[in-house]
């Protein structure tokens, strides 16, 4: 034994062989799972998918059906105002308009109030980029270098705050909801904060640091379409003013489609509205500022509840149900084919 080991090193002295390693990887013999579409695996996968999708789909449809939603298109109802707004020289003229509607049954739960726009292409490429995140973060930046152009500065060099087309075109209708209870009109208490993402409100949007807001925005001017400067967006709540204004933040989160809704207010659960909106007559008081007719747009106001799976859109549930049905049917078809061809033994051998 010792002898053998003694001359092993001598052999080792010989030039190392160029023989490749006989390892599983190099010889491509790694242990591997080779999935094959046997009848069992195919059928089981089809039926499993079918069953799962069907059950999920039913759940989704059921929950989507539980959503209560009221949509009121006020583009036509406030035609006077819209006509007024068509002429841009009337920009500083007030125009109020009210829309009545009736709730036949209570809307229970959290009620969200949205404003909806149609045919407003917030997702237009040049529109989407027309902003300065750094400016909105309260940083003192040279917005000339940003993508805000042409809404960066006025001719005299005064920078706009906030700059860019998105901010400039901010939705500025104000909508109030009144509950007509026994001929008395109660304003439905609405929450104007807490509607935006927490991170937006607390991280992404910051007012410039200064002892007060107006001084922080000194030296800047409001965007051209705006009626008031940014530090007057919400004069009541300091924490909802300037860049951190919820309405502003929500507007700045540009919508994915030309038809969209943005969360505007939430019903505050106090008094009669502890459980939501009770059935009855309601009136929207809209101060109509936002012109849409020139791009054939429409404006809506929406009251809606939400469920775990989102809003009232039943599509996902339908998709699940259809898919589940299709998968199950396919499973049956394959079974039929299999049964028919089994005698031939030409396929799906186990």
């Amino acid at each position, binding site marked *: 034994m010792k*002898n053998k080991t003694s*001359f092993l090193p*001598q052999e080792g002295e010989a030039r190392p062989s*160029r*023989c*490749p*390693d*006989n390892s599983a990887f190099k*010889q*491509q013999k*790694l242990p*591997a799972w*080779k*999935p*094959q*579409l046997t009848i069992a695996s*195919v059928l089981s996968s089809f039926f499993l*998918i079918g069953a799962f999708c069907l059950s*999920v789909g039913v759940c989704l449809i059921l929950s989507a059906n539980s959503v209560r939603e009221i949509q009121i298109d006020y583009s036509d109802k406030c035609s006077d105002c819209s006509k007024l707004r068509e002429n841009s020289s009337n920009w500083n003229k007030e125009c109020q308009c009210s829309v009545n509607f009736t709730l036949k049954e209570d809307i229970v739960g959290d009620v969200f109030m949205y404003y909806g726009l149609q045919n*407003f*292409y917030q*997702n*237009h*490429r*040049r*529109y*989407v980029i*027309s*902003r300065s*995140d*750094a400016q909105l973060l309260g940083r003192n930046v040279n917005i000339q270098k*940003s993508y805000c*152009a*042409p809404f960066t500065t006025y001719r005299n060099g005064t920078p706009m705050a906030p700059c860019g*087309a998105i901010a*400039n075109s901010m939705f500025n209708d104000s909508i109030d909801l009144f509950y007509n209870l026994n001929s008395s009109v109660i304003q439905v208490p609405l929450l104007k904060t807490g509607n935006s*993402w927490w*991170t937006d409100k607390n*991280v992404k949007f910051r007012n410039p640091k200064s002892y007060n807001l107006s001084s922080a925005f000194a030296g800047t001017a409001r965007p051209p379409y705006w009626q008031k400067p940014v530090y007057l967006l919400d004069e009541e709540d300091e924490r909802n003013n300037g860049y951190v204004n919820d309405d502003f933040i929500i507007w700045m*989160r540009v*919508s*994915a489609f*030309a*038809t*969209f*809704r943005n969360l505007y207010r939430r019903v505050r659960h106090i008094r009669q509205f502890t459980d939501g909106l009770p059935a009855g007559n309601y009136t929207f008081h809209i101060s109509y500022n936002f012109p849409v007719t*020139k*791009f054939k747009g429409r404006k809506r106001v929406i009251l809606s509840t939400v469920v775990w*799976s*989102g809003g009232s*859109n039943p*599509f*996902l549930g339908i*998709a699940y149900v259809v*898919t589940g049905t*299709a998968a199950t049917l*396919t499973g049956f078809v394959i079974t039929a084919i*299999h049964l028919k061809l089994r005698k031939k033994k*030409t396929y799906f*051998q186990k």
Partner: protein
Amino acid sequence: MALSVDSALYRWQRLGAESAPHTLSESTPLLFSARDKPKLNLNKRRIVFPNNGRQWEDWKQASTFYSGNRIQTTKYTWFTFLPQYLFEQFHRLGNLYFFFLVVLNWFPQVEVFHREITMLPLIVVLLATMIKDAIENYRKYRFDKMINFSKTRVYDKEERAYVEKCWKDVRVGDFVQLQCNETIPADILLLYSSDQNGICHLETANLDGETNLKQRRVVMGFSSQNTSFEPEFFQNTIICEMPNNDLNKFKGYMEQPNHERIGFNIESLLLRGCTIRNTEAAVGIVIYAGHETKAMLNNSGPRYKRSKIERRMNTDIFLCVGLLFVMCLVGAVGHGIWTGNFSEHPPYDVPDANGSFLSPVLAGFYMFLTMIILLQVLIPISLYVSIELVKLGQVFLIHNDIDLYDEEADLPIQCRALNITEDLGQIQYIFSDKTGTLTENKMVFRRCTVDGVEFSHKENARRLETHKELDLDDDDFAKLQHFTLPPMNIERPATYKQRTMRPLRRCQSARAHFQGHTRNRSLGRRDSNQSQVAFSSTIEKDVTPDSRLLRRVREAALQTENLSPFIHTKTFTSFTDFFLALAICNTVLVSTATEPRQRVTVPPPIKPSGITLEKIHQMFQRLKLASLSQSFSSSQSSSDLGASFSAKYTEEHLAALGCCDNDDNCCASGRGDELQGEGRTDIGSASLDEVFKSVTNSPLPTDFCYEAESPDEAALVYAAQAYSFTLVSRTPEQVTVRLPQGTLLTFDILYTLGFDSVRKRMSVVVRHPLTKEIVVYTKGADSVIMDLLEDSAKADTSAEKRMKRIKEKTQKHLDYYARDGLRTLCIAKKVLNEDDFQKWANFRREAEAAIDNRDELLMETAQHLETKLTLLGATGIEDRLQDGVPDTIAALREAGIQIWVLTGDKQETAVNIAYSCKLLNQRDTVFTINTENKETCESLLNLTLEEVRKNYEVEKPRRRFFGIISTSFSASEAPSPEFGLVIDGRTLNIIFQGGLEEKFLALTKHCRSVLCCRSTPLQKSMVVKLVRRQLKVMTLSIGDGANDVSMIQAADVGIGISGQEGMQAVMASDFAISRFKHLKKLLLVHGHWCYARLAKMVIYFFYKNVNYVNLLFWYQFFCGFSGSTMIDYWQMIFFNLFFTSVPPLLFGVLDKDVSAETLLGLPELYKNGQNSEIYKLSTFIMTMLDAFYQSLICFFVPYLTYEDSDIDVFSFGNPINTISLLTILLHQALEMKTWTLFHVVTMIGSVVFYLIFSVIYNAACVVCNPPTNPYWIMEKQLSDPTFYLLCFITPVIALLPRFFIFALQGTFGASLILKAQQLDKLPKEQRDIEIQKLRSRKQTTSGASPASNDDLEQNISHLCVSPFLHPAAAAVSYGDTESQGLSASEVNPLRKQTPEEGYYFFNRWAEEESTATDSSAGPFSGHYPRVPSTVTPHGQDGGKLTKDNAHNFNHGSHRRSVSAVTL
């Protein structure tokens, strides 16, 4: 000075005028328009002035126009690298496209992404290729440098001596002195050789792969100089042809100062890259240098190879470009319309920086450009990078395959080309070299028949079989013995050791440092195995004599000693004659082991032991008297005398031989020593013994190395040596043979009639030293020799009857040999009387002196001499096929690959090998076309084509009929006759020159195999190119020698065999393997895998990109075609770069659709790749459609889900991105056939990495990506149940159709691949059975199975003769009247016309009438018209041929037997 200039001018003018008479008017003085004048003059000639100071001005003038000897094969230099590289890169369309995108993105009107982002892919790609190019270039540079700076000795006019210079400094006109074993630095005209006869030996292995020595002669007039050559006094001007790449042609003359001209040709030219051998010193003048040398001109640079998939891919990329264009157009038009719809600009239509708006048309135009940038991923740049990476991985795995590793050479496969791995899976045509590729290039003497008696050499055969194993075991054994065995029982190991030592002792030609003429260095071979001298490996040298034959030889000696008047005596003399002929009748050079490559030209001095030779002579006279009755016995050699040794000696010797027979370690050369020793100890029992003793006492070198022109010659000489007829020395005048008793006989060589392919034989005319008789020994193909035998038709005497019987027997043996795949040679002799010889010699001298028709005359004289021969016997030599060649060929064939053999070898050899490696079947119809006439060739091609088509027409309807009834029933169909085509180099030339390529190809398409013999390297490459271009097929060339280089480079895939012959082929190849059999796994397994993997990967990439890009496209419909994206840029870029890149890469490297075992078992599976089934237009379109569907799903399911909600752009894009990631990965998962741990890890890893990256990126990026930023979107989505619901349902919907189709594929028309996959699941034994079943089913449907062929073959084989060896025999004996008339004209040897230009025959073996295929009964019509070389109206000639042929064809098919036509 002025004088010399003037004289130079004069000479230039005169030379120019001579070379081109029409330029006479252009007598512009050289000095004034030096540039123009030489150009005009040098168009046709090259004028070389010696660089020795005498014609300094001339030399300077001339040499400036000739390139120096520096070679440069690099693409770039240090300074030009960057610009040139970029220039080259931007010639590539892909790069240009991306560069265009980058530039485009710098315009704010169209900018989509950040400027830097678009540049990223381009920069990455450029950097990667740049590094690769730089490394490659540097390697080339180092090779060049090494070559350029190697030293040689050049004459320096100042020092008047040879000084050492670098190769690169050698100029045209320089005198170069070369020593033995030096490599020649340039093309040099030989002016001096240290050899007395002015001969210099060359080894041209680097150039043409031939390892034998070539002779080169000093230019006439210089050979007489006994003193060494003085360059100083050389005053001649050399005029020769312009540089060209013909290695075999060179012409020119040398003009002396007195205007006398001395002609020279290729015989005097030393070619660059060759090695000087056996010559101490040689001096020559450089004619061509550097890139103008013949070697370099032959070395056409490597072609950039692009694989078929890549070509296919490029067209698909153009399709993608089209698609992109359409999509962009949709975007542009849509945007234009959308913008035009507004009467007033809405707030979301943002004006440009100046506040102005674009017109709809202009906006549309800009949008078009924007969309190009946006959808750029449609053109997959990542694909290029991924393919490179995947190929690297594939190459790595191929390289590491242990099955492709050759233990003997310790060489794994080398993958030299990195970018054509998948082409291995698509090969349709293989072009193979023969020698060294199919065969081992080791000729082995196998059997012989002497006097009609067959000696099977069973021991030899056994030895050959065991040789391999022994060789391997020996090493181990020796090692073991070295370490463990005590010295006492070393005996047996010692015998082993002797064997193992042998290869080391083998003449080691000290190979020059530089193997190749360009940059191919012999890579430090430690292995003596590979540095051997030509044709002298152990396997060739050691011939174990057949004991029976050996005894006969001995008996013969005894008989003659007793002088018994038996009739058999003659038999025995023919034994000795046979071996003498083997030893003498050749052109083998002898060198000794101790002094490698030092030729033995002078027989070792025989000690003057008084009257030795005279004594022997006397004895011969005595013996001769005894056997006078026989007319042929006169050449009894002294071996007969050997019988006069004492009986004791013989017995002893036989005993010794007996031991040799038992233990095959005893070998021929050893015996030589033994004999000597015995001769010494055996003191005088008879008076003759003394004589022999004195003779044998002379110290002889014991081990000779033979260097032969062809390996079979060497094999024969070794065979003779085994029977103790040892060739000792050879000079042009004399040849010395040592006889078994040790006597040295020196024959005077009167004439050597060299081998040529027309005569197919060679002869030597010698004067027997003892009998003084003039004997002609002839050796040649049996087909010709058999016709030239003495006519024994009358058969009146018993001797003649006997001769006839011998002839018949020998013929039978020959047929048997040929069937066995042995190379057969017949040996015959003839005794001339003095008068006849003198007559003939005069005639010969006349012929040699003739100026016109010299070659023809020489041929005729040779033919005149080689008649009425007496058959001595025949030999069977085996050029051993490499292991597993027939098997490999069968498998490749089954895989649907056409195999052609292109060889420089003789036709006979090639055909024999083709038969033995099952390339041709005995039953195949083989067409042979040899012609030098275009018309003949054309009509032959037409006829053959017609014949073949006729056959196919007969076949086809039948097939169709059966096809309708049932596919499985067609098994009963008779196997269709297969066709083989044999064609030679000259005919190929005609075909290429005469524009007959199409006909040729049409014919070859019907042929199972094609053999091109006697083809030059250039022709080989032309054939390959022709097939590749005209038939549009994938070709593979495989070869081992430098002569295969051009062919290797011409093919789509070039494979070099790193074997015996240099590294040239390997250097030129894409893959280098060490054995032919490796091709099987390389193609069938790796080729299939690589193709399947890469094809699937490429198609997947297209799918992936289209799928992903379309998501963006669909979004355009919802954002006013404004070019906005819903996915964050970085996530988008990383999507391709990281999230979905690794799984396909891994897939491309590791996926195995079918296991290696099944692939090897079912070669049919290879057709999958051959027909490009995975990746072709239809699959591409299907994939595209699927991609469109999937992207629609991936976009619209989320769209409909989020429709009319408060979703924002990037929150909408995020689930889409996630969904498409899942879909794309799951799609990949569906495609994957093998899941190893790697696959699982990368799959899951990709998803996890995506999630983690997105989470981190979205959390960390508050303002990092202005103006769009994805802050907190992923987090928000992850907390939303809708997101999960979407992520489940969308991939399911997207992939359900594909899954469904996959599921159905197993049901309807299951492909072979699927079946094979199912087979893989089975346990091994069951799988083997299933494979057998599948194969047999396939074979019965396809008609002829190799197995059944073999059986049939067995049945008919004894009736079949090697088909093409007998046309001549038949022509003479059985030709019809017409052809007899013609062949009669052939017999007339003195007609001074060209020998036949065209010759053609074809034969067919029709199995149903195989009984008729007795060769002797073979009906046959042949004629041998002598087409006058001058002005024959060719059309007429062709017409005649057609008629004749038609007749012959009819004849042949009528009689269903060998029918051959010789035109």
